[in-house]
């Protein structure tokens, strides 16, 4: 048996490596799926909540839109105002007890994280959309784009760029907060650390290891997201063509600026 603190950390790490790796894998899986699904949910919610409503619109459209907005607003408020840990318990046990749905804990965990992230993302995406200058919309409308085309080709790409730091935040938060899913025995990193600590009763050492793994995961993720942001910004400079260039020359300089992005 090791007799120093670091000795114990190392001993636990080697002995329970498969456990920690599996836990880390589950944590990453939950965070990735949860963030992506949450982003999709959030985007849809935000788009519905920002559809312009005109006085002259058809009454049916107005009613449907009003109801949809009410439901979505309730969803956002409800899930932002309650702890994810409580939501996890409610969904996992509630679905079994009252709806007879026996979900695997992992699935329940992913569902909870997705829905929860969706509620936050809805506000993040909405903020991103309304932060884009109204002139962009007018420019798009003036060349005949519809509301959806404007959203898809002009507003969303810019909004997405602007909210990337917030999406990154959500991602990192999900990595960390997925630890609350241990309450419904999802075998993520926190759960695994707790399990590994039991045999030798070395809680501090086990959680130092968990702590380091969480940090490494998050640090890596934030670096990757930063790279993606830079890529979205495109090159800082552009290649100047000549006033009377041929189609081939034009292709060449367009390609050059794409290379510049890399």
């Amino acid at each position: 048996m090791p007799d120093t603190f670091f000795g114990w950390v190392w001993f636990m790490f080697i002995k329970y490596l498969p456990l920690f790796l599996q836990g880390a894998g589950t944590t990453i899986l939950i965070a990735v799926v949860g963030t992506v699904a949450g982003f999709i949910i959030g985007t849809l919610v935000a788009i519905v909540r920002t559809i312009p409503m005109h006085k002259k619109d058809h009454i049916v459209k107005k009613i449907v839109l009003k109801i949809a907005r009410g439901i979505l607003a309730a969803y956002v408020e409800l899930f932002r105002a309650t702890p994810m840990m409580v939501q996890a318990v409610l969904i996992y046990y509630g679905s079994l007890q009252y709806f007879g749905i026996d979900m695997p804990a992992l699935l329940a965990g992913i569902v909870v994280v997705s829905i929860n992230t969706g509620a936050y993302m809805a506000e993040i995406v909405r903020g991103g959309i309304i932060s884009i200058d109204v002139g962009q919309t007018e420019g798009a409308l003036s060349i005949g784009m519809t509301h959806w085309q404007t959203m898809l080709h002009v507003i969303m790409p810019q909004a997405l760029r602007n909210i990337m730091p917030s999406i990154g935040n959500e991602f990192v938060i999900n990595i960390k907060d997925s630890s609350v899913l241990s309450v419904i025995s999802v075998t993520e990193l926190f759960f695994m650390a707790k399990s590994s600590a039991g045999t030798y009763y070395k809680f501090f050492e086990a959680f130092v290891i968990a702590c380091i793994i969480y940090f490494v995961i998050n640090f890596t993720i934030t670096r990757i997201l930063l790279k993606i942001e830079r890529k979205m910004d495109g090159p800082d400079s552009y290649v100047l063509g000549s006033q009377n260039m041929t189609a081939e020359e034009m292709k060449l300089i367009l390609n050059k600026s794409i290379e510049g992005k890399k």
Partner: protein
Amino acid sequence: MSEAVIQINHLGKSFGKNEVLKDINFSVNKGEVVCIIGSSGSGKSTLLRCVNLLETPTYGEILYHGKNIQHSDQPVSKYRTKVGMVFQQFNLFNNMNVLNNCVVGQMKVLGRKRADAEERAKYFLDKVGMLQFVNAKPRQISGGQKQRVAIARALSMDPEVLLFDEPTSALDPEMVGEVLSVMKTLAGTGLTMMIVTHEMAFARDVAHRVCFMDEGVIVEEDSPQVIFGCPKHERTRQFLTRVLG
């Protein structure tokens, strides 16, 4: 009298209790270049924005080739492809380079193939002297250059009418000239243009007709010679004395 492309009948626009346009009657004929002048807040821009329905008129009607655009079986977006607009703040798409700014509308709205759209875009970018900058992003070029690209973008859609909303007001004085010279060339091609401007010399030289607006009404409209030479109304005279010094 040639055919009226755009005919505005009894048009009014209020923002809340603020009545910005009052019973406007106005028309633009095919191939005509009309300049609208007047002090800030006189309703010039609002009138122009009503013409392509960026503002919804409170009352009155706008006819495009005799058809009311607000009660048409075609969507407004279809109409807007025929009536392009150039903005004071350029409104180029910040997420696209110069070429794509001029291509995206052609492909998504008119359904042109990329090769055709690029060909068309390059033709007009060349016309406005911006072909060299195809792969620059809007944030990388100057205001005057942005406005020239914006004009090329509007032209790429092959509009019948082009609306200019104070196209040089956000530009440094030294860049005004490059944009005005592009517009001057356009006017010579027989494109129908409706221009809200503070550039009196430009209006005098290029316009077929000049409209003076004040407090939401068209006070006077006539040939540039008359408006700038011997305006009939006192308000027109006062305005011109003020801006021409």
